[in-house]
């Protein structure tokens, strides 16, 4: 069958792409990397650090100090080794997605493994940021590793990797609760048979304590590197205070370019709380399947994150592969797919038209970000609907399912 060639072809394609000169051009692209994930800023920060200047003093570096410590000690910084490293991270992320799938299906291997891995490796929303050397690859890897360890029941590693994910990108804190719930239950699909959360919630307290301990330890490691606590407002504070209004495919930047200072703090609070308020309802509604809750919350992140790049909806779309039970109940997958096909070329086109050619203006690009938001929202809503609809199952033709 031809399908058995998909995975080797995907691997070969990714290896081939990392040896081309694409990263030279892609690392400037604003769709693939944000001020929080851009490789150029990371290199600037490493340079400043090596020359004894505080890299967080100027506002260029918004990466976590963990990146600084790793890239100034163990990891390479030149272009080709970096491309190889990023490709290996993508392979590791694809592998952890396959492990999540296997844990969910309770098998040690299945025929769909290669398909799932290929869907991760060949997803352009994930492949292009990886080629652009955006650190969103590491963010996605840490999230998937956290979910993998949680699915396999390895408590400490799951909580450590979740703490690392939060350290690298504070909006990833949305998945902390689903990870803890997943550790307390199992990753197996209960979407068709919802039940009340079977375990007493007080058993989550030691998990939360361990998570906080790991977070504090990582914060101390970061502070040791930087020498002060200056990195906190520069890295984590950036997602909350939005100091850098570089255009990105997200929904925040345009809103805040035209925001009067008087209302800025209010709306920053509104937007940040908007992300946080999804945690409890989603986890309550999907308490029978915390992995699906994590999936939904990753979709929320992929739509409403402060500094969005294409890698965030990319993770959400690739994770559709591990929930085949909801596929029959998706109401408009074609609409979602077409919206994404529409938004993805429109974003770089209007970006170019606005900032390179000068024949467009910011409203063009804002419109394309709205289309991407629509695409993400359509996918998210469809996933929520399908996840809940699975519980109802097949319906006799003379009945229909309505929402009260």
């Amino acid at each position, binding site marked *: 069958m031809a399908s058995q060639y998909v995975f080797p072809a995907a691997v070969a394609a990714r290896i081939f792409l990392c040896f081309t000169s694409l990263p030279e051009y892609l690392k400037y692209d604003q769709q693939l990397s944000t001020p929080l994930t851009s490789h150029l800023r990371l290199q600037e920060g490493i340079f400043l*650090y090596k*020359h*004894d*200047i*505080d890299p967080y*003093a100027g506002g260029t570096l918004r990466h976590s*100090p*963990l990146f600084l*410590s*790793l890239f*100034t*000690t*163990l990891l390479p910084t030149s272009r080709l080794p970096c491309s190889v490293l990023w490709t290996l991270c993508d392979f590791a992320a694809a592998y952890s997605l396959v492990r999540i799938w296997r844990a969910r299906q309770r098998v040690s291997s299945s025929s769909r493994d290669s398909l799932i891995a290929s869907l991760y490796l060949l997803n352009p929303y994930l492949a292009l940021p990886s080629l652009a050397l955006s650190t969103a690859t590491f963010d996605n890897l840490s999230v998937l590793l956290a979910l993998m360890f949680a699915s396999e*029941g*390895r*408590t*400490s*590693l799951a*909580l*450590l990797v979740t703490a690392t994910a939060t350290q690298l990108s504070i909006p990833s804190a949305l998945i902390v609760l689903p990870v803890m719930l997943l550790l307390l239950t199992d990753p197996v699909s209960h979407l068709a048979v919802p039940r009340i959360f079977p375990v007493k919630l007080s058993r989550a307290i030691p998990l939360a304590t361990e998570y906080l301990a*790991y977070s504090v*330890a*990582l914060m*101390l*490691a*970061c502070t*040791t*590197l*930087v*020498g002060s606590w200056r990195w906190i407002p520069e890295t984590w504070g950036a997602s909350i205070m939005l100091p850098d209004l570089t255009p990105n495919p997200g929904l925040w930047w345009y809103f805040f370019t035209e925001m009067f200072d008087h209302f800025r703090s209010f709306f920053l609070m509104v937007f940040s709380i908007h992300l946080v308020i999804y945690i409890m309802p989603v986890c309550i509604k999907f308490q029978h399947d915390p992995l699906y809750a994590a999936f939904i919350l990753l979709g929320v992140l992929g739509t409403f994150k402060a500094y969005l790049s294409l890698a965030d909806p990319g993770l959400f779309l690739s994770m559709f592969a591990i929930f085949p039970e909801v596929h029959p109940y998706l109401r408009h997958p074609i609409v979602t797919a077409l919206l994404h096909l529409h938004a993805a070329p429109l974003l770089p086109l209007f970006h170019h038209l606005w900032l390179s050619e000068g024949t467009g203006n910011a409203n063009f690009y804002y419109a394309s970000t709205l289309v991407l938001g629509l695409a993400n929202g359509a996918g998210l809503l469809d996933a929520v609907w399908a996840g809940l609809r699975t519980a109802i199952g097949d319906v006799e033709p003379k009945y229909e399912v309505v929402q009260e």
Partner: protein
Amino acid sequence: MLSSLFSRCWALLLLSLALWTTSTTAEGETPEKQAADFFGRHESTSGHTNNWAVLVCASRYWFNYRHMANALGMYRTVKRLGVPDSHIILMLADDAACNPRNPFPGSVFASSSRSLDLYGSHVEVDYRGTDVTVENFLRLLTGRVSPDMPRSKRLLSDDKSNVFVYMTGHGGNEFLKFQDSEEISAFDIADAFEQMWQKRRYNELFFMIDTCQANTMYTKFYSPNILATGSSQIEENSYSYENDADIGVSVIDSYTHFVLEYMERINKTSQTSLQDFFNAYNPHTIRSHPGVRSDLFQRPLSDTLLTDFFGGVAHAEIFDSSSSNIDFELDEEFASKWQAVYDDACNAETSSDGGDAENSSERVAQSSIRKIGEKLDLSPGKWKEARKWASVASLGALIAWAASRW
């Protein structure tokens, strides 16, 4: 024999001694005198520092092609001798080059050989078409322009400018016809020049006019430092020089042709005086009697160079620096701090090794950056290497710890 040789040697010795003493006593010149000597070397004492040219062609329509060629030829000459476009005001009807009747579109020639295209590469016309009016011309000269007039269309001369005003067109007894619809009189121009003098808008002014009965146009001037010349006297026409059979009209006027040919023989460093120029006037070849009015002009014409008006040769004003009140405010403390940083870096480098210039300067720069970082409290602090590895090691320890637990 020997005594004459001996006396010759003595004479030579005395002469050299005299020369030597004069040269050494001349060393004590002041800088002002040296600069004045340098700048005054080409012996013009006009005292101007910049040159302006106002070139006006007051005719329009195809059959006045030669007036267009007059003005463009003068424009090219003035530019060649060094006056920049920013100091040339060119007023043309500009309807010859792109005229539908022009068999050589986009070109204006001043001779039937058509060897030089005057409209070719870079012609900046400031007032074109219907903008060439008497009012605009007088406003330009006197400086009474509306605030929205762009700088390129203003005569921004000052009291040290030598202004060359050239006019060509159809004229008569004390008048000049503008664009076939209005006329300017000699009185108007004289009053405009007086306003320029009172407003200190020129140092010296050279007025040249090529029309019929041109000399009548300068009879009414009454302001100082004006030198004027015209192509023909009263009751006399100015004639064109030659026709071009393919273009179909006359291409240049006699007087202007003579002037341009004369100017082709000089360049920016020329010492040709205006007296030489006026002496070269030949009424026979020009076919009219050109005139000169120099009673208002205070310098002798033999001391006045052609490049004083036609070229862009500049002098410099020397003033004593101690009398100027330009005061540079310097943040002394900041400057000394930076100086100290740089000195430290340089001393560190020179004391460590005598490496080659490139590397040492780069190392100086790097150590300066480091010290600047320290002084501005930007440095990550001491033990950077240890802290770096400590953070990586703690991360590894955390991973090992978590992996060991279940």
